């Protein structure tokens, strides 16, 4: 095995990465229905017994898939997501008052995450403006004769993402539809940990193909691979 150079000191072990995560934190995760969620970090978070978390991400996965594994164990105080339908345990915890769920329309949610990553304060959208749950507590603005909701940017103390390849600077490329929310989540973390299938030498990714520039990535760990069975299997 070729020893990888680590000039930016971003490549590290799961254990060192987990030192960044603590009880009560706000953590943003990449993935869509579990696809593209970082399995090794999720397993590590469970092993570390993290609790009282606030999570931000597209959905609650399935009970034994993706972030669902953490949600199902009651380790989450609150989640901001667009749906929880594929994880009945999340629905039960919510109905029992043990899990607070803030619903955001999917496209609005990812724009809010992106806005956080891009250093903006909010975006204006008219999606869900007639909906009392979506619009609750949100400011409204008239602009050119139309009314919009002010949808505040979202950031997190730590973001965890899953990618196909990283170089030592943290430049990331993704695999097919496992890209989904990962590039947005990667930007929105105040500290971002990327779990990747492969770490390649600096210069071996083309500058054209890089999806997430490494400046948004603080730490890189190698993935042990997906350790759950997909719903369709």
């Amino acid at each position, binding site marked *: 095995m070729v020893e990888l150079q680590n000039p930016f000191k971003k490549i590290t072990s799961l254990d060192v990465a987990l030192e960044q995560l603590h009880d009560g934190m706000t953590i943003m995760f990449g993935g*869509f*229905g*579990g*696809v*593209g969620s970082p399995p090794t970090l999720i397993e590590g978070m469970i092993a570390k017994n993290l609790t009282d978390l606030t999570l931000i991400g*597209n*959905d609650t996965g*399935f009970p034994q898939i993706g972030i669902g594994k953490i949600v199902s164990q009651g380790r989450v105080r609150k989640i901001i*997501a*667009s*749906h*929880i*339908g*594929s994880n009945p345990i999340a*629905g039960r915890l*919510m*109905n029992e008052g043990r899990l607070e*769920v803030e*619903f955001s*329309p*999917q*496209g*609005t949610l*990812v*724009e809010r*995450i*992106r806005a956080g990553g891009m250093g903006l304060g909010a975006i204006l*959208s*008219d*999606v*869900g403006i*007639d*909906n*009392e*749950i*979506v619009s609750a507590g949100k400011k409204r603005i008239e602009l050119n004769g139309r009314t919009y909701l002010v949808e505040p940017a979202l950031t997190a103390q730590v973001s965890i993402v899953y990618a196909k390849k990283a170089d030592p600077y943290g430049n990331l490329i*993704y*695999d*097919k*539809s*496992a*890209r*989904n*929310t*990962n*590039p*947005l989540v990667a930007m929105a973390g105040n500290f971002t940990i990327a779990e990747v299938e492969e770490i390649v030498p600096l210069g071996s990714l083309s500058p054209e193909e890089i*999806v997430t520039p490494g400046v948004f990535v603080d730490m890189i760990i190698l993935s042990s691979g*997906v350790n759950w069975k*997909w*719903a*369709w*299997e």
Partner: protein
Amino acid sequence: MGLNLDVRNKMAKRAAEEITDGMVVNLGIGIPSLVPNHLPETMTVMFHAENGILGMGPSPATGKEDGNLCNAGGFPVTVVPGASYFDSVTAFGMIRRGKIDVSILGSLQVSSTGDLANWIIPGKKVPGMGGAMELASKANKLIVLMNHTDKTGRPKILEKCTLPLTAKKCVDLIITELAVFEIVNEKLMLIQHFHTTTVDEIISKTACDILIAENLKVIDF
């Protein structure tokens, strides 16, 4: 009261007639996912997925699935020539910018003015809206494919939805196992029905006034 596959396929076949060459189409889970089976093979349609794919192809053969290539429902797909992958924020940009020609969704209820209620049953099922609000309010044509009545036989097409709305005045076409309705200028019009039913049955199972098209057609498949 699930519909059998034959009936669901007939609904999907009818929905497929709304799709023409070159369109960008988003399909919800359930019956809408059957629609591609009823399109001519020569037709070029770009299927869109909210997670970040444009240009989905048929389901892969068993054993050929790729866990990193799934649609928004989490099921394995393939891609056609000309397909692209992108992040979810771009996928929703396409929806909000009006690039989706046809969106075909399931629903819990639809009102006679085209209101859609398909994201929550308070106190019971709380799936969340996912991408339904964007699709409902921004797709150029919104088609609802659903059972005519709910499990207990109650009409799902109503004067006014009793469940929380996903979006107002957004539905253009309703296709059920009984009939096809167009909603134009907030008026519900019966334009076609399957040969297995009658106008009287449709009226009795629909909880609002219905206009009947002058050239009402019977679907013979």
